[in-house]
């Protein structure tokens, strides 16, 4: 026990990394489930339904399939680079997630902030550094596969990524001008407060153009539809990961979804207020929102279990119902306890933690749903249309947004306070 009290940073960091890794891997798996379900419903069909109730065990089945598939290595030009590329892609994608604050920094464990693995002063720029290194995974994979389609796919994909990276960074500078700091917690703190007492002061309100530019550039950066020509099946077989099978392909797959989660987290932090709730702090009933939401979900699952499910799916869905209701109890108990005047001090901390995580996750899920919605709805760009869009439309719009933001801020600085 003295070891824990003498080395709090090390112990808490290890705990946070382990928990975050587990949570991120599960989130990746269930993001694939969500994507398949949403796209299926857009296309008027069911999606995964039989592997577990409502297809909830489908990611597990896919994971097992990837583990047990035969690892076919074609006669590649360079074994070292061929093996290195997916590891590089996945490790960079997971490193980026370590910088993101999931909740308020006031919640601490042994004196260390609980919700961010590493909070550095230059967090935003460091995140861009890590994502800009992600181009290597794609380029090296395409080149080392020793085949026409992966090479073309890899080169096109990496050219697309570095083109849209410029617009991505410039569309974020408007937010930096408003926030005045590169630190994620500072940017989120700068978004507290309300216009007219009920519109939250999130950066999406003054920087709506920046937000749209950022979202477009982020979709292009992660190679999603409508920008996924380099990895579309009808165009380039499977792009840069054609020659990869089983576990290495699974790593590319996970890296793509981890990149999606990272840019969604970044959009939430920069434009949507991170873990801040949209309701003013004085409205105390907002403490019941997470519990109420989980309770509603649990009740829906309970009704479904009782009426619609049969056989083993009924058992699985009963487990899901119990999980939802258990989560609802965990969220509601501190909220109800805080109503009484003699609540101990840790109840307020638990409430802050639950609120922070709930709003952050809600915003991320909203943006990811938007991503998946775009995938189900839009056709894809041709490659020359894609590149001319990035350089001739998106970059000038981002620059115009930057210039306009600077001019407006200069005007307010010159006018002086008051």
């Amino acid at each position, binding site marked *: 026990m003295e070891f824990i009290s003498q080395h709090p940073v090390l112990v808490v960091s290890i705990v946070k990394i382990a928990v975050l890794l587990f949570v991120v891997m599960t989130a990746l798996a269930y993001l694939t489930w969500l994507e398949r379900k949403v796209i299926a419903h857009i296309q008027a069909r069911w999606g995964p339904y039989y592997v577990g109730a409502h297809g909830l065990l489908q990611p597990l089945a896919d994971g097992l399939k990837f583990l047990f598939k035969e690892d076919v290595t074609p006669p590649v030009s*360079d074994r*070292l*680079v061929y093996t290195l590329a997916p590891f590089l892609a996945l490790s960079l994608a997971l490193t980026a997630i370590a910088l993101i604050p999931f909740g308020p920094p006031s919640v601490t464990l042994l004196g260390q902030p609980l919700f961010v693995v590493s909070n*550095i*002063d*230059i967090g935003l*720029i*460091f995140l*861009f*550094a*890590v994502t*800009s*290194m992600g*181009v*290597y995974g794609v*380029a*090296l994979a395409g*080149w080392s596969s020793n085949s026409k389609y992966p*090479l073309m796919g890899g*080169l096109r994909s*990496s*050219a697309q990524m*570095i083109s849209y990276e410029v617009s991505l960074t410039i569309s974020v500078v408007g937010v930096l001008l408003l926030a005045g700091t*590169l630190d994620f917690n500072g940017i989120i703190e700068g978004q507290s407060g309300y216009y007219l007492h009920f519109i939250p002061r999130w950066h999406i309100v003054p920087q709506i153009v920046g937000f749209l530019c950022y979202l477009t550039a982020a979709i292009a950066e992660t190679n999603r539809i409508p920008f996924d020509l380099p990895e579309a099946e009808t165009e380039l077989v499977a792009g840069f990961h054609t020659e990869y099978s089983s576990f290495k392909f699974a790593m590319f797959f996970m890296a793509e979804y981890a990149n999606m989660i990272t840019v969604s987290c970044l959009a939430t932090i920069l434009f949507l207020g991170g873990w801040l709730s949209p309701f003013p702090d004085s409205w105390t009933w907002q403490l019941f929102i997470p519990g109420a939401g989980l309770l509603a979900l649990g009740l829906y699952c309970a009704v479904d279990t009782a009426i619609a499910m049969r056989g083993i799916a009924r058992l699985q869905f009963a487990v899901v119902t119990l999980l939802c209701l258990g989560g609802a109890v965990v969220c509601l108990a501190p909220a109800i306890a805080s109503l009484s005047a003699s609540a101990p001090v840790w109840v307020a901390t638990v409430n802050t933690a639950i609120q922070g995580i709930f709003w952050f996750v809600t915003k991320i899920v909203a943006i990811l749903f938007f991503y998946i919605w775009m995938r189900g709805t839009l056709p894809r760009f041709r490659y020359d249309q894609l590149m001319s869009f990035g350089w001739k439309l998106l970059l000038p719009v981002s620059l115009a947004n930057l210039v306009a933001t600077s001019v407006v801020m200069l005007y307010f600085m010159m006018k002086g306070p008051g």
Partner: protein
Amino acid sequence: MSLPLIVFLFFALLAVAGAVMVILAREPIHSALALVLVMVALAVLYLLLGAEFIAAVQIIVYAGAIMVLFVFVIMLLNMGLEERTNFSKFAYVGLVAAFALLLEAAHWMFHSSVGAGVANGSQPVTAFSTVELSKLLFRSYLLPFEATSILILIAILGALVLARKEE
């Protein structure tokens, strides 16, 4: 053996190993990847020296854009293996002279008083703040800053004109 010293030794050895790999690699793509390793190791050393912004700029610009350009060109031009040439035996004399020069430089470096305050901890080691750096960049060094932006524009135009296919 404090933690900064261990981190320094590890990443310094990594940088030197990467530089040696640049020389010894037979394929150009391996040299490029070794150079990326050198740059990332140097970025960590900049972090150790407190220059956080420069470390991030090094990774974004140098390792993430310039070296990607090198890797692209190597992939597109599809050159073969590096050829071994038979250099003259005079090179070994040069190697001895270089080693002697390095020993002399090391001797003078270790007996100099540059940065003595930082080394034994009497000067406080605080990270260089990005705000102060940007103030310097946009006030005292504004003219070189604008000049480099024109330099980049010239480089873009030059590269476009040079690499265009003749119609």
